[in-house]
C-alpha cells in the first residue's frame, strides 16, 4: 500500500463547441494510492466521467500529466500504451449498452484475452473465462446466454468479469451500480469490495451517490463544473464537510427514516450553470448561500484546511 498508483497533475480536458471551449475537466490533481479507492462525486455534467476516461487516455487530455505506476504516460504513443491498457480497465455505467448484444456471455468475457497475446491456447482462455465467471458469481450455465436474457445485476457482473480478464491493477468504475435496483446494488458493491481485497485492486469510483461512495471509498473528491471543490479522507469529509457545495450535496440525500423529514425544504436553489467559457471565480457562487464579492474575479485555489483535507472556498482561505 505504498505510494500512489495513479497521479494526475493539472489535468485538463476542454472540448470545442460552437459557443466556445467547454471546460469538462479543469485542473484536477489526483493521487490514488495502491490498493485504495478514491470516490469521485458530482452531479451530471460536472465532468466526472470525462475525468475517468481521460486518466485512462481513452480521451486525450488538453493539458496536464498522468503518472501511472511511476511513469508519465502522457509521453507514451499508441504502441507504448497498448501493454499498459491491460493494467487499467473500466466498468461502465450502463450494463445494457456496454455489452455487445450479438455476443454470448463467455465470448464477451473472453474477448480481451483473445485480442491480447500471452493468454495461451483457446482452452486456457476458456478455463480462465469459466474461472472469472465463478469469481463474479455468474452460474456456469449462463456461458452461452446472450445479454438480453439477463437482468441488470448479472449484466453488470459480466462487465466486471470482462474488466478483470487481463489482471488489471487499476479499474475505473463509472457509476457501476446506478442503473441497478437497491437489493442488487448492494450485491455488486459487496462483490467489488471482495475483489479489491482478493486481487489488491485500485479503484477510481465515479458516482453521483454520496451514500455509495461513503461505503466503498478511502478518499473522496467532490467535483463541480470540472473542478475539484473539496477532497478529503472519507470519514473526515462526512464528519467535517467544508465546501458549501459538499454540504448541499450531503443535505440533499434523502434518508430512509422519518427523523430527517422536511429536509428537502432547506436544499440549495438554482441549477448547474454552463461549463462553456466559465468566468473566473468560484463556479458554485451563483447557487451559494455564502457567496460574496470575494468569490468572483479570480479562481479560488484548493487549500489544505486539515490533514489531507483540501477545500476551494474563500471561507477557508
Amino acid at each position: 500500500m505504498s505510494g500512489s498508483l495513479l497521479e494526475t497533475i493539472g489535468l485538463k480536458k476542454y472540448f470545442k463547441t460552437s459557443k466556445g471551449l467547454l471546460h469538462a475537466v479543469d485542473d484536477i490533481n489526483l493521487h490514488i494510492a495502491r490498493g485504495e479507492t478514491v470516490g469521485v462525486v458530482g452531479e451530471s455534467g460536472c465532468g466526472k466521467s470525462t475525468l475517468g476516461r481521460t486518466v485512462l487516455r481513452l480521451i486525450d487530455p488538453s493539458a496536464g500529466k498522468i503518472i501511472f505506476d511511476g511513469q508519465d504516460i502522457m509521453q507514451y504513443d499508441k504502441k507504448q500504451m497498448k501493454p499498459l491498457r491491460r493494467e487499467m480497465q473500466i466498468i461502465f455505467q450502463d450494463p445494457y449498452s456496454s455489452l455487445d448484444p450479438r455476443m454470448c456471455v463467455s465470448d464477451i468475457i473472453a474477448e480481451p484475452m483473445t485480442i491480447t497475446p500471452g493468454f495461451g491456447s483457446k482452452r486456457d482462455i476458456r478455463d480462465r473465462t469459466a474461472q472469472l465467471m465463478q469469481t463474479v458469481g455468474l452460474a456456469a450455465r449462463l456461458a452461452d446466454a446472450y445479454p438480453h436474457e439477463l437482468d441488470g445485476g448479472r449484466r453488470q457482473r459480466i462487465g466486471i468479469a470482462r474488466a478483470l480478464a487481463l489482471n488489471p491493477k487499476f479499474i475505473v468504475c463509472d457509476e457501476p451500480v446506478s442503473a441497478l435496483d437497491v437489493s442488487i446494488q448492494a450485491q455488486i458493491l459487496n462483490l467489488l469490495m471482495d475483489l479489491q481485497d482478493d486481487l489488491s485492486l485500485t479503484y477510481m469510483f465515479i458516482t453521483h451517490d454520496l451514500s455509495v461512495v461513503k461505503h466503498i471509498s478511502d478518499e473522496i473528491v467532490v467535483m463541480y463544473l470540472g473542478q475539484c471543490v473539496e477532497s478529503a479522507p472519507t470519514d473526515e469529509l462526512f464528519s467535517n464537510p467544508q465546501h458549501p457545495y459538499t454540504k448541499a450535496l450531503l443535505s440533499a440525500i434523502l434518508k430512509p427514516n422519518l427523523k430527517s423529514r422536511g429536509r428537502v425544504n432547506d436544499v440549495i436553489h438554482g441549477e448547474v450553470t454552463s461549463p462553456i467559457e466559465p468566468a473566473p471565480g468560484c463556479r458554485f457562487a451563483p447557487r451559494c448561500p455564502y457567496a460574496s464579492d470575494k468569490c468572483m474575479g479570480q479562481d479560488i485555489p484548493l487549500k489544505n484546511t486539515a490533514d489531507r483535507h483540501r477545500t476551494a472556498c474563500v471561507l477557508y482561505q
Partner: protein
Amino acid sequence: MHHSTLLSFVLHRKETMGIVGETGAGKTTLALSILQLLPERTGQITQGDILFDGEELTKYTDADMRAVRGERISMIFQDPMTSLNPVLTVGKQIAESLALHNSTHRTKEQIEARVDELLELVGIPAQRKNEYPHQFSGGMKQRVVIAIALACDPELLIADEPTTALDVTIQAQVLAMMLKLKRELGTSMIIITHDLGVVAETCDSVAIMYAGEIVEIGAVEDIFEGPCHHPYTAGLFASIPDLDVASDRLSPIEGIMPDPTNLPNGCKFHPRCPYCTDICRSVPPVDTVIHNGHLIRCHKIAQERKVQA
C-alpha cells in the same frame, strides 16, 4: 403472464401513498391500470374493482375514461426527457390538456393566462412558455410535466418515479415543490418509487410491492419505525448504505426478482427469503393484520402472531 395479482389498498382524500418496489414489481402496471392505459390486447384487468370517489372505473367506457384522465386523475411519468413532445413549445403542451378538458368554456386568452399561472406555480418564468423542451434542463422539464399534470386541478395525481432521472439537489427541489403544491391544492397523490428516502420525505402511507403483490402496507410510521416487517421490507432497508452507521458490508437480498411469466408457488418471495419454511413453498400467504391499517402478507408473521395470541 400475471402481474399485479390480488392488490387492494385504500387511498384517502388529501393523502399521499407511496408504492415501493424494485424493477418488475408491477408498480407502473398498477398505475397504468388505475388509468386504464394498459395495452388493450395484452393488458387486461381480469378481476377486481377500482373505485375512484365511489365510482367503479372499470365499468367506464373509453369516452368516460378520457374525461377522467388528465382532468380528475393525472399522471407524471418517469422520464421527463421522453414524455414531452420535442416539436411543440412547452406552453402549447400545457394548453393542450386545458383545451381538451375545457368544461368551464375558457377562452383562448383565459387558457393562456392559466398556462402562465401554472408555469409560475412550478417555478418557471412565464416568458419561457414559447421555448421547446430541448431548451430546458432535466429538472425544468420535469417541472413542465408537473405543470401539465396539475393543469386541470386533478383530485388524484399519480407520479411514477418523478425524480429518479434527476440529480440529488434538483430532486430535492422538485420534491419540495410537489409537497408545497399538494399542501396548497389539497391533491391526493400516489408516488411510485424505488427510493425509500423519497417515501420517508413525502408519504403518509406506504405499500411495498413484490412480484405483483402488496406484501406489506401501512402508515409511514409503521413501515419506517414499526417493529414488525415482511422479510422483503426488512431486506430492502438493509440493502441501503446507511450514512450514519459505519459498516463494512451491505446485506443485500440474495437472488433476483422472479420472472413474472413463471412465478414460484406459495409465497412469491420464498426463493430469496432467509426464513423460508415448507408452508412458504406451497401455500400462498394471506394478509395478517398487525394493527389497524398495517397488514403483512407472510407466513412467519402470521405464525408469530398466533403464538402471541
